């Protein structure tokens, strides 16, 4: 299983990442990709309001280590041939790409499960912090209860200490 983890200010090209996964080995039957984008509107008080930009901070060193643990856990749980995670940091504009998760596997279920598992853990366990700039003001984004709940479906007691 080949894994690639990158944290970078630069944008990424999903077709390049897809090709790298596809070219890994001859047994690949399924490639699942997830790309997260900056939504152009976010709730502000009661209603959605356009955002100016998003800024992402991270804890260099710890983030890479956590993402690599998440990938190891996914690889222990499903039959995977390749995993790529790319997460951008710094200032992003509306509709820009934030995060890419790509999983290559023999069969589709492994790819879908692993991609969801990685995103659920990334959202709640990887040391990134988002600040949103909206109506001329900057605010740190609150963590979402729905993200914490999404973790529960994987139901691994030892995941708590990740």
């Amino acid at each position: 299983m080949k894994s690639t983890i990158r944290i970078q200010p630069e944008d990424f090209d999903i077709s390049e990442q897809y090709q790298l996964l596809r070219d890994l080995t001859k047994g690949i039957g399924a490639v699942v990709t997830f790309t997260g984008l900056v939504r152009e509107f976010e709730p502000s008080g009661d209603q959605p309001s356009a955002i100016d930009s998003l800024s992402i901070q991270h804890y260099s060193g710890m983030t890479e280590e956590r993402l690599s643990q998440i990938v190891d856990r996914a690889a222990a749980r499903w039959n995977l041939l390749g995993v790529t995670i790319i997460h951008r940091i710094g200032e992003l504009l509306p509709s820009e790409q934030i995060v890419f998760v790509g999983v290559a596997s023999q069969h589709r279920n492994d790819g879908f499960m692993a991609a969801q598992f990685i995103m659920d853990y990334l959202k709640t366990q990887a040391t990134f912090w988002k600040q949103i700039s909206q109506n001329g003001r900057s605010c740190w984004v609150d963590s979402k209860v729905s993200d914490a709940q999404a973790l529960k479906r994987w139901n691994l007691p030892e995941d708590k200490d990740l």
Partner: protein
Amino acid sequence: MVKLLFFGRLSDYANGVPTQIQASTAAEIRQQLVTEHPLLATELSEPQVLVAVNKQIVDWQQALQDGDEVAFLPPVTGG
């Protein structure tokens, strides 16, 4: 001496906080900040704030070693 790092919303309150400090636990670091950085100390008291020593999550009471990197982490919001 241990090295201090503050992330997310905590970093907004960390202006003027020394980057190195003498302390035996993370709990003691918070205590030391109460007088001169009361807003930061209040934020650090939020139950969701975690402490990492040398990039591993630890208890607030864990004994610190000279040269440790102590990071205070509010809930993460990546992805």
